[in-house]
C-alpha cells in the first residue's frame, strides 16, 4: 500500500500557537532542515500523537502550547494518499477532543477513526495512559525518534513482520505459528529440564527415581540373600537333626566298644602266648648251652683217644723219616766229593788255557811293538828331515836382511816425494837442452859440481850454473824463480831422505828393497810350508816321536822278556780260555750246590732225629692219659646227659615252633592297630555326636532369631516398593523421552521455519548492506533483528561480531538500513510504510554518511521519507530541495 503524506497542519501545538502548514510533500525523500529549537521534533511529535494518542487521551499535556491554559486544543491535520485514495485525519486534544478520518468516501469518527487508523497502519492503542512502545507497531519501527536510531526493538512489530514474511499465498506451514509456538516450546523445555540435564542425563526427580530403584534392588538383593541363608539353614537343621537322630538310635560307638573289648581280649591272649614263647626260648637256649658243654666234654674225651693214635702214627713216621734223612746225607756227601773233583779239574784246564792265551797275547804284543818301533823310527827320520829343512830355511831367513812391507812402502813414498820434488824443481828449473856434435863437450858447473855435457840431452838448472864454452867463454845461467831454491832444497831433502832410508834398510834402491821383500816373503812362505810339513809328520813334535820310539822299543823288550818267562806250552788243552772259564764256573757252582745240599741233608737228618725223639715222648704221654681210670666214668656220664638234653630240646623246639606259628597267624601287630583304631573311632564318634548336639542348639537359636524377623514379609513389602519405584521410573522415563523428542522436533522445525522466514529479510538486508560495508553479511536473530555482523578483515579472513558491540555510529547505520529492509518487506505485504528520521546519522563520519545517503536515496525510491535535520549542509546532495519550517 503506497502511502504519501501530502499536507501537515498543526495548530496550538507547543510553539506553534499559530498554525503551521506544510504541503507539497514528495512521494519519496523529503528533507526538512531547520536550526535547533525550530520545532522539528515538535512536528514529529505531532504526527506521532495524531496516530498513537487517542483524542481523549489525558497523557498529551506536552502538546499544550506554552503558557496556554485549559482552553488550548492542540490540533493536527494530516492529508495523505493511501493507494491513491485521499485521506484526511483531523485530531484535536485536550480542550477540544475530536478525531475524524475521511477515507475517500467513508468517514470515521472518534474511536472508530482511531481504530481504523490503527488497523491500517499496524499499531495499537494503550489501554489507559500514554501510548507506549509496545503499542507503536509498524510505525514505531519505522519512525525513528531523535537520538534513538541506534536502538532497534523489533518485538512490538514482530507479528506484523511475521505476517509480512509469510508466503504470499498464505501457506501456513511456512509461517511461525504466532508467538504461541515459542511459548509452548518454552513451556515444554521447562518441563523437560525438570527431568533432564542439558546433556540429556536424568536429574532431580527422574534421577531420584533411578536411584530409588537401584537402592531398592540392592535392599531386595540383601533380603533375598538373607532369606536364602535362612532356608539353607533350615535345610541344614533338618539334615543335622536326622543325622543326630540316627546316631542316637544306632549308637555306633557301642558296637565299636564291643569290638574293642574283643580286640583287647585277643590281645591279652596273644600277649600270654608271647610270654610263653619267650620263656620257652630262654629255656631252649639254656639247653643249647648245656648241650654244647657236654659236647665239648665228649669231644675232649674222644679227642684223647684220637690223640694217642695220632701220636703212634707220628712216631712211626718220624722213624721213617730218620731213615730217609740218613740215606740222603750219605748221598749228598758223595755228590759233594764228586763236585769237588770236578772243580779241580776245571781249574787246571783253565790255567793251561789261560797260559796259552797269555802266550799268544805276548806274541801279538811283541809284533805290534816292533811294528810300532819301525813306524816310529820312520816317522822320526822324516820329521828330522823336515826339521832340518825348516831350520835351514829359518837360518836363511834370519840371515837375509829383513825388510818389511811397511818399509818398502815408506821407500816408495819417499821416492815419490823425491820424484815430485824433482818434478817441481824441474818445472821451475831452467831446462837446458843440448845437442852437441860428436866430440864436443861442455862443462856445466852448478853447485860446485861439474857436469860434462855431451851428445844429446837436457839438464835442469836450478841453481846458478856456469856453462863453460869451448873456447873459454862462459855462460852463467841463473834460473829464475824464488822458490827455486826452496824447491831445490826440498828436492835435495827428499833425496836425502830417500837415500837415508835406503841406507837404513840396507838396500840400494827400491827395486832391491822390493825384491828383498819379495824374497823374504817367499822365504816366509817356504818356512810356513816347511813348518806345515813338519807338523804333519810330527804333530806333537820330534821329542814326542822320539819318545814313542823309545816306548815301542821298551815294549818290545818287555814282551820279549815275558815271553821268555812263560812256561812251556802244553800240548793238549785245545780249550779256549772262555770255555775253560765257564767250565770252571759251572764246576764251582755245582760244587757249591752239592755242598749246600749236603748241609741241608744233614740238617734234615738232625731234625728227623729230634722229631723221632719227641714223638716217642708224646706217645708215651698219650697212652698214659688213656689209661686213666676216671675217664671212663666221665665219658659215660656225659653221654647220658647229652641224650637227655637233646630230647628236651627237641620237645621244646616243637612247642616253640607251634606257639610261634600261632602267634604269627594271629597278627598281633594288626590286633594292636585294631585296638588303636577302634579307640580313636570311638572317641571321634562320641565327640562329633556331642559337637553336633551343640551345633543343633546353635542353629536352632539362630533360626529362631531369624524367623522372628519376618524376613519374607519384609521381602514382599520391599518387592512391592520396588515395583512401584520401577513403575514411577518408567513413567518418568517415558515422560522425559517424550519431552525430549518433542522439544527436539519443535526446535528443529522452528529453526527451519525461522530460516525460511528470514530469507526475504536477509536478502533485503543484503541489498543495502554492501552499500555500507562491502563484503559484509549480517545474521538475523530469532526476533528478526540483526544480531551478528560478519566482515572480511584486512588479511582476508572473515570475522564476526555482535552488533551490540559495534560503535554508536555503526549501530545506528546498521539499524537504519535494517529499517529500510523492514519497510521494503512490509510494503510488499501491503502495509503503508512511512519512514521518519529525526536528526539521524549525526555520529557518522563523512565516508559512512555518504554511503548511508546512497542507501537512503535508494530506499526513498520506494517509501516516503521525512528527514528532519539541523545540518542542511550534509544533505544538499540528495537530489531534493531542502525545505525549511517557515
Amino acid at each position: 500500500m503506497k502511502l504519501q503524506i501530502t499536507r501537515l497542519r498543526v495548530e496550538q501545538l507547543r510553539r506553534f500557537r499559530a498554525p503551521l502548514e506544510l504541503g507539497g510533500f514528495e512521494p519519496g525523500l523529503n528533507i526538512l532542515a531547520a536550526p535547533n529549537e525550530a520545532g522539528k521534533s515538535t512536528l514529529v511529535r505531532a504526527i506521532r500523537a495524531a496516530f498513537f494518542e487517542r483524542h481523549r487521551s489525558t497523557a498529551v499535556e506536552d502538546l499544550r502550547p506554552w503558557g496556554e491554559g485549559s482552553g488550548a486544543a492542540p490540533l493536527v491535520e494530516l492529508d495523505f494518499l493511501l493507494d491513491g485514495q485521499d485521506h484526511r485525519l483531523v485530531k484535536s486534544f485536550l480542550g477540544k477532543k475530536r478525531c475524524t478520518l475521511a477515507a475517500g468516501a467513508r468517514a470515521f469518527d472518534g474511536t472508530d477513526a482511531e481504530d481504523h487508523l490503527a488497523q491500517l497502519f499496524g499499531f495499537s492503542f494503550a489501554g489507559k495512559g500514554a501510548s507506549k512502545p509496545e503499542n507503536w507497531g509498524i510505525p514505531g519501527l519505522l519512525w525513528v525518534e531523535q537520538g534513538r536510531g541506534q536502538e532497534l526493538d523489533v518485538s512490538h512489530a514482530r507479528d506484523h513482520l511475521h505476517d509480512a514474511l509469510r508466503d504470499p499465498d498464505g501457506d501456513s506451514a511456512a509461517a511461525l505459528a504466532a508467538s504461541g509456538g515459542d511459548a509452548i516450546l518454552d513451556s515444554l523445555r521447562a518441563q523437560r529440564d525438570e527431568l533432564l540435564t542439558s546433556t540429556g542425563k536424568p536429574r532431580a526427580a527422574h534421577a531420584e527415581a533411578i536411584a530409588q530403584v537401584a537402592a531398592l534392588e540392592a535392599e531386595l538383593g540383601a533380603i533375598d540373600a538373607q532369606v536364602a541363608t535362612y532356608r539353607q539353614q533350615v535345610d541344614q537343621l533338618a539334615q543335622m537333626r536326622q543325622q543326630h537322630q540316627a546316631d542316637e538310635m544306632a549308637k555306633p560307638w557301642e558296637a565299636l566298644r564291643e569290638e574293642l573289648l574283643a580286640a583287647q581280649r585277643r590281645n591279652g591272649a596273644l600277649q600270654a602266648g608271647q610270654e610263653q614263647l619267650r620263656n620257652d626260648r630262654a629255656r631252649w637256649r639254656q639247653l643249647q648251652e648245656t648241650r654244647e658243654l657236654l659236647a665239648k666234654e665228649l669231644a675232649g674225651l674222644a679227642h684223647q683217644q684220637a690223640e694217642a693214635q695220632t701220636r703212634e702214627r707220628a712216631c712211626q713216621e718220624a722213624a721213617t723219616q730218620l731213615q730217609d734223612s740218613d740215606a740222603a746225607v750219605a748221598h749228598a756227601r758223595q755228590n759233594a766229593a764228586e763236585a769237588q773233583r770236578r772243580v779241580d779239574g776245571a781249574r787246571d784246564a783253565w790255567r793251561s788255557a789261560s797260559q796259552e792265551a797269555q802266550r799268544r797275547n805276548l806274541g801279538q804284543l811283541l809284533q805290534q811293538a816292533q811294528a810300532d818301533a819301525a813306524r816310529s823310527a820312520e816317522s822320526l827320520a822324516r820329521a828330522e828331515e823336515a826339521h832340518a829343512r825348516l831350520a835351514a830355511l829359518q837360518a836363511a831367513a834370519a840371515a837375509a836382511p829383513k825388510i818389511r812391507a811397511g818399509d818398502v812402502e815408506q821407500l816408495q813414498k819417499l821416492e815419490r816425494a823425491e820424484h815430485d820434488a824433482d818434478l817441481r824443481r824441474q818445472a821451475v828449473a831452467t831446462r837446458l837442452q843440448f845437442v852437441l856434435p860428436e866430440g864436443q863437450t861442455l862443462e856445466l858447473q852448478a853447485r860446485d859440481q861439474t857436469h860434462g855435457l855431451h851428445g844429446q840431452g837436457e839438464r835442469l838448472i836450478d841453481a846458478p850454473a856456469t856453462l863453460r864454452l869451448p873456447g873459454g867463454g862462459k855462460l852463467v845461467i841463473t834460473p829464475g824463480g824464488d822458490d827455486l831454491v826452496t824447491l831445490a832444497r826440498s828436492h835435495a831433502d827428499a833425496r836425502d831422505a830417500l837415500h837415508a832410508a835406503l841406507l837404513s834398510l840396507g838396500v840400494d834402491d827400491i827395486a832391491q828393497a822390493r825384491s828383498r821383500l819379495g824374497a823374504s816373503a817367499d822365504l816366509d812362505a817356504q818356512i810356513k810350508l816347511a813348518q806345515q810339513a813338519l807338523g804333519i809328520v810330527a804333530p806333537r813334535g820330534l821329542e814326542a816321536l822320539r819318545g814313542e820310539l823309545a816306548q815301542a822299543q821298551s815294549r818290545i823288550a818287555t814282551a820279549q822278556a815275558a815271553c821268555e818267562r812263560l812256561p812251556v806250552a802244553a800240548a793238549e788243552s785245545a780249550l779256549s780260555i772262555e770255555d775253560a772259564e765257564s767250565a770252571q764256573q759251572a764246576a764251582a757252582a755245582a760244587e757249591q750246590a752239592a755242598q749246600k745240599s749236603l748241609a741241608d741233608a744233614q740238617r734234615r737228618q738232625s731234625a728227623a732225629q729230634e722229631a723221632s725223639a719227641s714223638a716217642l715222648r708224646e706217645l708215651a704221654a698219650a697212652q698214659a692219659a688213656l689209661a686213666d681210670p676216671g675217664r671212663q666214668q666221665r665219658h659215660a656220664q656225659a653221654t647220658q646227659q647229652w641224650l637227655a638234653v637233646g630230647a628236651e630240646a627237641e620237645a621244646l623246639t616243637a612247642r616253640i615252633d607251634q606257639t610261634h606259628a600261632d602267634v604269627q597267624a594271629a597278627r598281633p601287630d594288626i590286633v594292636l592297630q585294631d585296638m588303636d583304631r577302634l579307640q580313636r573311632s570311638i572317641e571321634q564318634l562320641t565327640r562329633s555326636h556331642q559337637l553336633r548336639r551343640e551345633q543343633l542348639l546353635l542353629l536352632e537359636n539362630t533360626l529362631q532369631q531369624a524367623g522372628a524377623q519376618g524376613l519374607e514379609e519384609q521381602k514382599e513389602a520391599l518387592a512391592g516398593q520396588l515395583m512401584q519405584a520401577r513403575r514411577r521410573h518408567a513413567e518418568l522415563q517415558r515422560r522425559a523421552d517424550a519431552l525430549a523428542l518433542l522439544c527436539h522436533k519443535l526446535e528443529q522445525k522452528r529453526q527451519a521455519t525461522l530460516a525460511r522466514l528470514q530469507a526475504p529479510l536477509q536478502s533485503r538486508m543484503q541489498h543495502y548492506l554492501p552499500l555500507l560495508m562491502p563484503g559484509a553479511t549480517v545474521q538475523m536473530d530469532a526476533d528478526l533483528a540483526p544480531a551478528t555482523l560478519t566482515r572480511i578483515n584486512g588479511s582476508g579472513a572473515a570475522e564476526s561480531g555482535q552488533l551490540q558491540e559495534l560503535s554508536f555510529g555503526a549501530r545506528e547505520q546498521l539499524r537504519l538500513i535494517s529499517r529500510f529492509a523492514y519497510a521494503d518487506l512490509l510494503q510488499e505485504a501491503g502495509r503503508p510504510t512511512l519512514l521518519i528520521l529525526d536528526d539521524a546519522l549525526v555520529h557518522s563520519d563523512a565516508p559512512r554518511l555518504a554511503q548511508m545517503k546512497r542507501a537512503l536515496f535508494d530506499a526513498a525510491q520506494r517509501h516516503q521519507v521525512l528527514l528532519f535535520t539541523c545540518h542542511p549542509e550534509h544533505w544538499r546532495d540528495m537530489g531534493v530541495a531542502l525545505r525549511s519550517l517557515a
Partner: protein
Amino acid sequence: MTRFLHSADWQIGRQFATFDPEHAPILAEARITVVERLAALATEHRVDAVLVAGDVFDVQTVSERTLRRLFNALSGYAGPWLVIPGNHDAALAESVWTRAERLGVVPPNVHALLVPEVRVFESQGFAVLPAPLTQRHTYNDLTAWFDAAETPAGMLRIGLAHGSVQGLLAEDIDSANPIAPDRASTARLDYLALGDWHGCKRIDARTWYAGTPEPDRFKDNGAGQALLIDIAEPGAEPQVTPLAVASFRWQSIAAVLQVPSDGHALIAQLEHLNSQDVADLHVRGQVDVAGLQRLQAAIGRAEARSRHLQVDLSALRLVPTDEDIAGLQADGYLGEVVQELRDAQASPDSPEARVAQDALALLAAELAQRAPAADFAQARKP
C-alpha cells in the same frame, strides 16, 4: 451325621505390596477377617471340625504379630481345627509351625497335623488321614499311604491333602506334588479335602477343592468360598454346600477399544465398580484424544470408588483424529510436528511409536492449555 467346614489356602502374611500402599493393608487385613468369618460360620453351622487343607501361611517367616493374629482369629470356633502344612508353609525342621509352638500361640483345639499318620477323633466320630508337606519341594504323591492306612471301624475316613490332582489341573497350579485322581476311592475315603487350587472346584463326589476364602488373584475361578460338608454315615455320599465368605470381588477387565462406543461400554463398566471390587484393567486398541480424556476421567472416578483398581494402558494407542488435530490449532511448525508424531505411530509396536504417542499427548495437552491465546491469530488478518 457329621458336619465339616472345608477351607484352604488362607495365605496369611501376604502383603499385596505391589498394590497401592493405601489398599494393600486392607486387602491383607481382609485375609484375617475372613478367617474370623469362617470361625463364626463354623460356630453358626455347628460343624464337628474345620478342615484347612494347607497354605495357611503365605511364607514361613511371617511376623510374630501376624502369627498371633491368625491364631487369635481361630478363637471364634471352639471345636477342632485340623490344619496341614502346604507348600508355602511346609513343615520343615524350622518352620512357621515350630515358631508358633515356641511362641505358644497355638490353642489346644488347633491340631497342626505335621506327620502323615492317622488321627482319630473319637467323640466326633471320624479319623483324619493327613498328607502334610514336609519339604520345600515335593514331587511324589504324599497321599499314597492313605490306601493302606487302617482306621477304627465305624469311623469316617477323612483325607486332608494339598497338591494338584493329576491330569485335571494343568496350568496355574502352585505346587508340583501330585495327587492321584482316584485317591478317594482307592483309600476308601468318605471325603478328601484338598487345597492348593485357589478356586472352589469339584473333582468328584468325594473330592473337592475349597479354594481360598478370600480371593487373592484376579483370575475368576470361583475363589472366595468355603465348603460345608455333611456326611450322614461312613460310606454315604457327602452333601457339599459352597458358602460365600469373601469380602471383596476380584476381577480382571480386558477391554479392546476400536470404535468410540467400545470406550463408552468400558466406561459404563467402570462406573459399576464399587468398594467391594478389586480390579485389574488392561486396555488395548486405539482411542482419540477426547476418548482418552473421557477414559482417564472414568478411570480416576473408578479408582476412587473401588477398593483397588490397577490399570495398564500401555497397549492403548492414542490416535488423534483430524478434528483433534484441527482442534489443537497447531499451525505453522507445530502442525508439522503433530503430523510427524502421528506418522511415527504407524508401526504401533516399535518403541518409537510409544515415545511419539506420549509426545503427541503432551503437545496436545499444551495446546489445549493455550487455546485461549489463539484468538490473537485471528485478529491479525486485515
